[in-house]
């Protein structure tokens, strides 16, 4: 079984330690959440996984292979992809074109329609629209999630997939997880919402750059609910 791992990952920026001794394992076909309060270092973990940031020390392993030095494109070619917390705007690029990466991703109209409609964007209304200021943050987020559905990666990292979305966010995440599970995709959700974390199989609770607890998501969420807001990165944390 394939797996993606972080081994003893530290990350510092401008002399400030952001992550310390992070160990995580994401097994193929499972769904995970990385849960924690704002500023815990969750998005930094996501960016390290995707290769946008290099750890100060430690390793990123994919199926046992050290991919720490590989860049974003190389990791994407190995089957990893990510939906960013704040999806970029692209002037002059239509959603249809974006989803097919300018024609490089070979998907047909029906697949695009299905992906867009699954994330709540009617094809007829959205496929021809530009990914620019005319789309709200929530709409761009939905496009980003549709993009991952079409890419069918082995590992999908979703950074705060519910932020900027309306009241239907929970249902959407549930539906996405079902789709990804069926496709055998490993999902890693970055979130500070316990309800979202509760939808995944396993969870990691991160606080102040350190791993506090890991386990079945229900247990981790319970722990998070009880303890979050207090300083947790103390010696002897689980």
């Amino acid at each position: 079984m394939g797996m993606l791992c972080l081994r003893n990952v530290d990350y510092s920026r401008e002399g400030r330690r952001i992550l310390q001794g992070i160990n995580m394992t994401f097994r193929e076909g499972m769904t995970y959440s990385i849960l924690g309060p704002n500023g815990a270092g969750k998005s930094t973990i996501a960016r390290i996984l995707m290769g946008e940031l290099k750890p100060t020390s430690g390793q990123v392993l994919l199926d046992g292979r050290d991919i720490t030095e590989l860049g974003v494109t190389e990791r994407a070619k190995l089957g990893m992809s990510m939906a960013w917390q704040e999806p970029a705007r692209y002037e002059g690029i239509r959603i249809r074109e974006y989803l097919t990466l300018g024609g490089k991703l070979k998907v047909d109209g029906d697949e695009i329609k299905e992906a867009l409609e699954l994330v709540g964007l009617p094809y007829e209304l959205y496929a021809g629209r530009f990914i620019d200021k005319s789309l709200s943050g929530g709409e761009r987020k939905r496009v980003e999630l549709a993009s991952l559905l079409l890419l069918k990666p082995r590992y999908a990292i979703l950074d705060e997939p519910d932020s900027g979305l309306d009241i239907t966010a929970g249902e959407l995440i549930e539906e996405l997880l079902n789709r990804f599970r069926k496709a055998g995709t490993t999902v890693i959700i970055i979130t500070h919402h316990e309800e979202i974390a509760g939808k995944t199989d396993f969870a990691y609770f991160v606080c102040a750059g350190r791993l506090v607890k890991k386990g079945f998501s229900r247990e981790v969420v319970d722990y998070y609910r009880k303890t979050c807001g207090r300083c947790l990165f103390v010696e002897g944390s689980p």
Partner: protein
Amino acid sequence: MTIKVDRVKEYEALLDIYEREGLDTSLFGDRVAAIIISGDRIIGLNNVPGVEIKGEEIENGVRADVRIADGVELPFPIHLCTGYLKSEGYQRVEFNITVGKNSKARFTSHCIFPYAKDFTHEAISRISVGENSSVLYDDEHIHGEGVRMISRTEVEVGKGGRYTGKFSLTKQRARELKLEMTAKLGDGAVAEMTSKVKAVKDDSVEIREVLQLEGAHSRGDLKSTVIAFDNSKVNVVNEAYGLGDYAKGHVECHEVVKGEADVQTIPLLRVRNDKAELTHEASIGRINEAQLVQLMAKGLTEEEAAELIIKGLLGE
């Protein structure tokens, strides 16, 4: 379309270029008001009800008056085709466009200089948009590598009128481009002017866009996008003047640099009315990192991602 008998060959040559470049050849049809210029000669002219085009051949070029009557709404664009089929020389064209009240018109202007090696094109357009009228002016260029282009457009928009100007030079080189667009707005008038230019090799590009928000509640947007490659030099000046009560203007300039290009942008905002409001936004330099990384996370290389982003920016 009236085509002068001795100029049929030039007319056909232009038509061939339209076909080759994938431009809309239906613009040469009888239902479209048009003036077709080749060098210093008018080779085709067509008027339709509500539109009167009068052309005059002047030294090295053509002057044309275009008048649109009040209350006219045209189903087809007015076609202004300026061609130059020789490789060297100088051409000057002047368009005086007057749009009456409560009218709606679209202009498609094509500058076609496919064989230009050492050619200077000077274009002066004066556009008057009447009260509550709406004008869209789309300016596209198809030409060879050796063009020096000087283009000046002065627009006045009357009360409640709207002007949208689009200038695009993205498919071919702009060896030397001086582009100046000025819009003066009356009460409640609106203007949107966008320019998209790709500069390569040692091209020199100077763009100046000016928005005079004179009328109360007038609104304007200026937007320039330049992609500068190689050793090109680009200078963009966007000026907006807030003069009328509750006038509102926005100036935006994005310049992307690849290679050794030298680019600068200068926004100038000036308000002389405490009820007016002006804003500006500029980015200059390499392609936005977040845009690149997010596309790369989908499997594109940095070069492929940059290409897609630039293609979008230039509207190709």
